[in-house]
């Protein structure tokens, strides 16, 4: 049982790492980035291309993936989302066009990777192994443990930064009312670039860690995780760090114990039914009231 709980916690951490950046961008600067899964995938794909030529240490693979994710995300914000938002007639049109733009960007990145890999799986050639650690009868790989620790550490750090720093306050202000934030001297476009860079960094980090953890991913792996991320974010409450943490772990535990119970084919149905019920009872999600964007 403890082993199963640990495995579910690692799965929750995977969802959390993936969802955190997406939730942050959506709940603060208002960018619902449908290309988040594609950034996740393409960051790994970039490392795969590099390690096809020469094997690298796993830690370097993860760092490169994170950097690629950040760069991709900044490019998207600068060249696409920022432009779309500027040229849109109103806030709703901007949100809608950003969603469509994200879908288009995702299709381009996935198409490129699919073409290069024939839609096959790809992984990293690393110079080191992923050892299995064993303590008190619990087995966990070094990368699984890393995913868990990194996801929790980033969540705590991000929550504290948002609550206690001037940058976090500015971000929350933009999330509540972008127009007022602008009047208060907050440079929204710079903040949006910074937020997207961090979101992309997390997507790339998740991509790098997950590719090592899962051995290989394929060009559409990010799409499946995108759906899980939506579920986790909506369940927890858009923009709430604690919400996305809880949402990710609830989703992972429900799925895990459905699978262990021999009814894994119903895992998504039950997980989304729970989310459906939560939305009926608490439309803003479990923790959305205090921090969710109100514009």
């Amino acid at each position, binding site marked *: 049982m403890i*082993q*199963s709980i640990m*495995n*579910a916690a*690692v*799965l929750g951490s*995977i969802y959390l790492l993936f969802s955190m950046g997406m939730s942050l961008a959506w709940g603060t600067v208002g960018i619902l980035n449908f290309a988040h899964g594609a950034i996740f995938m393409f960051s790994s794909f970039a490392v795969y291309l590099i390690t096809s030529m020469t094997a690298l240490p796993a830690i370097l693979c993860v760092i490169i993936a994170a950097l690629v994710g950040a760069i991709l995300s900044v490019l998207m914000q600068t060249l696409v989302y920022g432009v779309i938002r500027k040229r849109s007639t109103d806030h709703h049109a901007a949100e809608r066009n950003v969603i469509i733009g994200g879908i288009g960007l995702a299709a381009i990145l996935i*198409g490129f990777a*699919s*073409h290069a890999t*024939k*839609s*096959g*799986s*790809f*992984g990293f050639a690393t110079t080191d192994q*992923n050892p*299995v650690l064993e303590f008190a009868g619990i*087995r966990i*790989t070094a990368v*699984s443990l890393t995913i868990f620790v990194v996801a929790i550490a980033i969540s705590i750090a991000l929550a504290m930064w948002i609550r206690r720093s001037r940058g976090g306050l500015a971000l929350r202000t933009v999330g509540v009312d972008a127009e007022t934030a602008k009047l208060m001297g907050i440079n929204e476009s710079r903040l949006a670039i910074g937020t997207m860079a961090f979101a992309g960094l997390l997507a790339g980090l998740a991509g790098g860690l*997950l590719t090592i*953890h*899962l*051995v*290989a*991913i*394929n060009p*559409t*792996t990010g799409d*499946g*995780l995108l*759906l899980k991320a939506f579920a986790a974010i909506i369940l927890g409450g858009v923009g709430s760090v604690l919400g996305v943490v809880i949402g990710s772990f609830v989703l992972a535990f429900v*799925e*895990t114990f459905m*699978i*262990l119970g*021999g*009814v*894994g*084919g119903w*895992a*998504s149905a039950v997980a989304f039914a729970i989310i459906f019920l939560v939305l009926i009872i608490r439309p803003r999600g479990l923790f959305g009231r205090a921090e969710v964007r109100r514009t």
Partner: protein
Amino acid sequence: MAIHLRSGAAAASIVLAGALALVGCTGTTSPTPDPTGTTEPDAGGLPAVIELLGVRDQTGAVAYTGISAAKGTALAVKQAAEEAFLGEGVTVEVDERDGAFDPTVASTAITEGLASGNISAILGPQISNEALAVAPIAEAAQVPIVFTQSGVDGLLTGQFGYRASSSQSSVWPRAIEKIVADGAKTVVTFVSANNATYNQLGTVVIPPLLADGGVEIAQTFDFESSVTDFAAAAGQAAAASPDAIVVTLIGPQMPTLITQLRQSGYEGPVYVTAAMTDDQMKSMGDAGHDVFFPTNFSYAISSGLPAEFTKAFQAEFGENPDTYAAETYDQTWWVLRAIKQANSADPIAINDALLALGLQGFEGVQGKLTFIDGRDAVSPGVLVEWDPVAAVQKIAG
């Protein structure tokens, strides 16, 4: 993509092709013409251009299957051209279209392809959902459609549908025989919940085979195709210490599952479907030991038609063929022989010839193929083991 069958001028080729037609009629056709034959083909009923329509996934989640499939067809058509199999001046064009892992796209591709009115036969999709969607279209148009893969039940209910690849259920007895021979008493199974073919294999086909061998299924885990992490179930399976593990998940899921089984401490044999490509096998590294899969074709087969096919494929494409290419190679040769036997490009005449050839059976690169009701291929199958050190397939001992 259009692939042209250009006739060679040599009279010897005609003689060889005639021999092949003769052998085809007797149910022992080889893709390589019999040099002892003397029958000259009668191409009088054939038009200068015969059009086939291929709908396979060139993009989407399993594009690698469709890309391989197209190569199998291309090789068959090229060889037939070199042998002037259909006679002098007869050209075969294959209009390859992308099913894109989407039944709607596949249906549109078939509909648009048939719009010309000149299609003699269809080389159908490999994905069950696509196959189920397009079968009624071919049936309504009265154009024969020959599928590969697409192992779902209920596909071949019409008069124009065929399947050229043996189903997983026909080759899985090879794996069960080894499980039983190794003295296994319990297994744990991992089954795809929403892939129709693999779900049926894992829930309907394999359990009775195991039961007949006196092997108990200790536990079954089912997974949706979107699941990427199997650590919890792998841990529980390893804790049960089964004698073997049987996996009928989709290809991209299996390397992760097997690796996580090893990480959970399970070191026993793992029996998987033939859906894993060599690249996916390689990604497992050392964890890929004791991994077996029953299949209708492997490049590791060192003799006979499969070996000849492997050699020709390597020469043409510079890589080892996979099962998808082998299946479409047999599929395409079946259609070409039917055209030859019908001596006509008329779909209904070809349909009759396909059925006649199917009732006789023939030797293909999948082994000796027989056909249920003349439509649905069955092959003996072979059990293959992955060699993680050499990173190649080998025939299981």
